[in-house]
């Protein structure tokens, strides 16, 4: 804006009454699934239905909703990031900052890629690594425990050995 004013609002034109032009408002959506762990053997009862949620961006509530039977939120991210808040009796009980990044996870064949997915799925992988989020290339007790937990939840042979089946399951569960 040439007068130095900042705005985060969308810009829309006033059209002449006979104009055929339109302005597009497009939202980027990040699919997020709320699952409980462990579920039953086939994973069929994992989705958390009936969660009340809202999304905030730049101080405004930009989206509200309730999860359905699939536990899914099609979360809108505006600008650099948005915050997804879970509500209980109207109060915020949990919040997640979501940033859209063109960077993808490391390959599932690598230890870092496996840890990234375990973290995404809510397994405790500790606080090691450069970002303090547990994602690094070392195997410690927390790494082993998270892998055993995942294998138990997925009814896989539990020996903390990352087989091709486990890699495929990690990819499927994390959605990437």
């Amino acid at each position: 804006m040439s007068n130095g004013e900042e705005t985060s609002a969308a810009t829309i034109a006033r059209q002449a009454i006979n104009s055929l032009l339109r302005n597009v408002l497009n939202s980027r959506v990040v699919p997020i699934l709320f699952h409980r762990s462990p579920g039953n053997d086939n994973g069929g009862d994992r989705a958390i239905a009936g969660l009340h949620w809202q999304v905030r961006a730049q101080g405004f509530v930009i989206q509200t909703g309730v999860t359905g039977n699939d536990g899914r939120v099609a979360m809108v991210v505006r600008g650099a990031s948005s915050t997804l808040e879970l509500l209980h009796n109207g109060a915020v009980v949990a919040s997640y900052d979501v940033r859209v990044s063109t960077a993808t996870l490391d390959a599932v064949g690598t230890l870092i890629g496996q840890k990234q997915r375990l973290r995404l799925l809510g397994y405790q992988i500790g606080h090691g690594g450069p970002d303090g989020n547990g994602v690094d290339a070392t195997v410690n007790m927390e790494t082993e425990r998270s892998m055993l937990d995942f294998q138990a939840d997925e009814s896989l042979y539990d020996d903390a050995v990352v087989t091709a089946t486990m890699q495929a399951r990690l990819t499927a569960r994390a959605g990437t």
Partner: protein
Amino acid sequence: MQEHTVRQGDCLHSVAAQYGFFWETLWNHGANATLRRQRADPSVLKPGDVITIPDKDVREVPAATDKRHRFVKRGTPNLVRIQITRDDVPRRNEPYALEIDGRLQTGQTDGQGMVEMRIPPQAKQGTLRVGEGQDVEFYYFDLGTVDPVDTEFGARGRLRCLGYDDSQDFAALLKEFQHKERLPETGALDAATCAKLKERFGE
């Protein structure tokens, strides 16, 4: 004759209403020929643009005293037409509520995800709510703030509306758009990029 310097939020429609003219009168006035060539679209002006406001033709109407006379002001409403999409897919046949400067309109988006409302030419702000129940989304917008596409503010505004993260560095932002649209990733606001931006945003 006087001159009006465009500020952010002005467009030809709002300026015409402010001085009591039809927008066509100002747009087609000889003194504004340069502006018309430069901008091509009366809805998209740049702050700093100068609009020449002609003197009014004063019309006299003979009217008897002690009688009632009715003068009708010909209204020139404007229009907002917004297409709502998610990941570039129109939100079709969804309930919406559109509020502009305190006036509320409710309805359903059409088969192309379009919402349309008549507005006074000087309307400034709006809020749009789309969807119901399990997923409701809100949009906040300023009217008349679309700047020419070949300016940084104009390009950033369009990209923000299209869902891009406009908090990033301008060249990086343009490259992201160019990558998605399979344009040469120059990071510059070149002619091909401007044309594609207009096509996507609609103006």
